[in-house]
């Protein structure tokens, strides 16, 4: 199998160098672009398997670049942003960015994000059961078991869990979850969302106060991760 190709669009040479080394040593092929113009050109001439896109580019706002890319490019785009910039992160996710990373990021985090997408685009989920640690979900029978004991989930809790699992490893914004589970008419249910997440955690997590499956992304949304 040929190596997956990742396009890095970031104006900082140091960050590009770091990403290049990290990704190359994890068996990805890396293409670099220092400006938005260069990035758009490279993406068009030879579409990569995934794009890492910095929001703060010198020649054009990363959000605009994202919108241009999304007109034709439908593979994963991960946004690189800085902390305290949730507003732009949410805007990017609403403009169909696949995920985000805040600088400074840890290498493990970066690779986990990339893996979540490359794996999912590789092997479409056809299995009817899926296991995370001591948690097992059977989509056919709609049964959720923890340590072989069947959990009593309400319809909403089950829908919420399925949505999170289907997007394992990816961040889902509050708004997106609300639209998917409650429907667009119920978009102001953000209070219920918090409560349902707390209830779901009590049922599926080993310690609801130290969640290992449903991770909160402060001010942005939630992410389901496979326990290590």
């Amino acid at each position, binding site marked *: 199998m040929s190596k997956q190709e990742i396009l890095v669009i970031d104006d900082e040479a140091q960050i590009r160098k770091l990403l290049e080394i990290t990704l190359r040593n994890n068996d990805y092929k890396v293409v670099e672009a220092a400006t938005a113009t260069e990035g758009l050109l490279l993406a068009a001439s030879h579409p990569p398997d995934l794009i890492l896109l910095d929001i703060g580019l010198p020649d054009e706002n990363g959000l605009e670049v994202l919108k241009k890319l999304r007109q034709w490019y439908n593979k994963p785009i991960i946004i690189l942003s800085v*902390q*305290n910039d*949730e*507003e732009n992160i949410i805007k990017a996710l609403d403009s169909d960015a696949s995920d985000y990373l805040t600088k*400074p990021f840890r290498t493990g985090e970066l690779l986990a994000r990339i893996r979540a997408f490359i794996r999912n685009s590789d092997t479409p989920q056809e299995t009817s059961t899926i296991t995370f640690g001591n948690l097992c979900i059977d989509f056919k029978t709609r049964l959720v078991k923890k340590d072989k004991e069947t959990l009593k989930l*309400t*319809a*909403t809790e089950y829908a919420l869990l399925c949505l999170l699992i289907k997007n394992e490893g990816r961040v889902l914004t*509050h708004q997106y979850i609300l639209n998917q589970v409650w429907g667009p008419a119920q978009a102001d249910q*953000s*209070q*219920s*969302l*918090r*409560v*349902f*997440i*707390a*209830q779901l955690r009590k049922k599926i997590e080993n310690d609801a*106060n*130290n969640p290992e499956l449903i991770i*909160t992304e*402060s*001010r942005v949304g939630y992410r389901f991760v496979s326990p290590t």
Partner: protein
Amino acid sequence: MEKALLNKLPKAKQYLYGIFSVIIVAAICYFLSAYLGYKIVALVLLFTVSVLAMFLDIFPVLVVALLSALIWDFFFIPPTFNLLISNTEDGLMFLMYFIIAMVNAALNYKTRQWEKIARKREEKRNTLSLYNTLLNSLSHELRTPISTIIGATDNLKADKAKLQEEDKDVLVSEISKAALRLNGHVENLLNMSRLESGVVKPIRDWCDINELAYDVKHKLKEYSANHNIKINVQENLPLFKIDAGLITQSIYNLVYNALIYTPANGTITITAFKQDKNLVITVEDTGNGFPENEKENVFEKFYRLKNSRTGGTGLGLSIVKGFVGAHYGTILLENVKTGGAKFTIIIPAEASATNSLKNE
């Protein structure tokens, strides 16, 4: 102090008070005119104008001076009840009265301007010494991790072969620690400048305080190896509409502070409950508390306790105060009976009706 207070009077009130005082004094003089010569009255009126000049702005004083001259002429200089002046001596006196009143007003105003400038200079000097303190502690705080990174990488580059594996590991982990420490300082500095420039606007959304407290505990794992962090959130505490990012950072800073200054094996307790329409969060430690005479100052930017050891930028607590203030909340500091310090954050916030939805 008093001057500064009166200076803040709105212009309209300054005119009102000035004119009113002159009329009252003139009226008293008028009733006593049987005993007072009109020349004495001039001195009394001049005195009144001088006193007013100490408190009022230049234009109100000039108006008062003009008014008093006219009153003196009209009511006191014979022939009274008109503005006529019958002899040269009185004419000269009126002219001199007018000039003295005006000069008086102008001089007083000037003196006050000088005072203002002197005060500003003093303030500037204070700010300057504050910034020197800041630069000292900050440059220490920034340079230590930078030195570590440079030194460690130099070592790794130069002595690849000679260094023992375990030493390499130590150097690498020191680099990583130093970078995290730098990141923390930069975070604080950026937060401070966001607060200073007034761009901190809380984005309130429903927030599970229990989750937030455990999040802080989790983030501080690396620093709390020698301490115990206890979380004590009121049973069935409702959700609150707050800015999760800002309040998490606030609790983080308080707990971090407590971890740094509480002797090993101490306990830091985070408590949260609802009181009236407020969310109350407290962070209490088992350290030595704060010196009574410095408790007031700890929230000031760059303030560091007189006897505090090196480390810290003096920004953490002032950021907490800023973030809590952005929520229209308050923060209090007290020393508890057992000796430790206790910070209490009180935030007015909308609370959810309940935190559990039994029926869907």
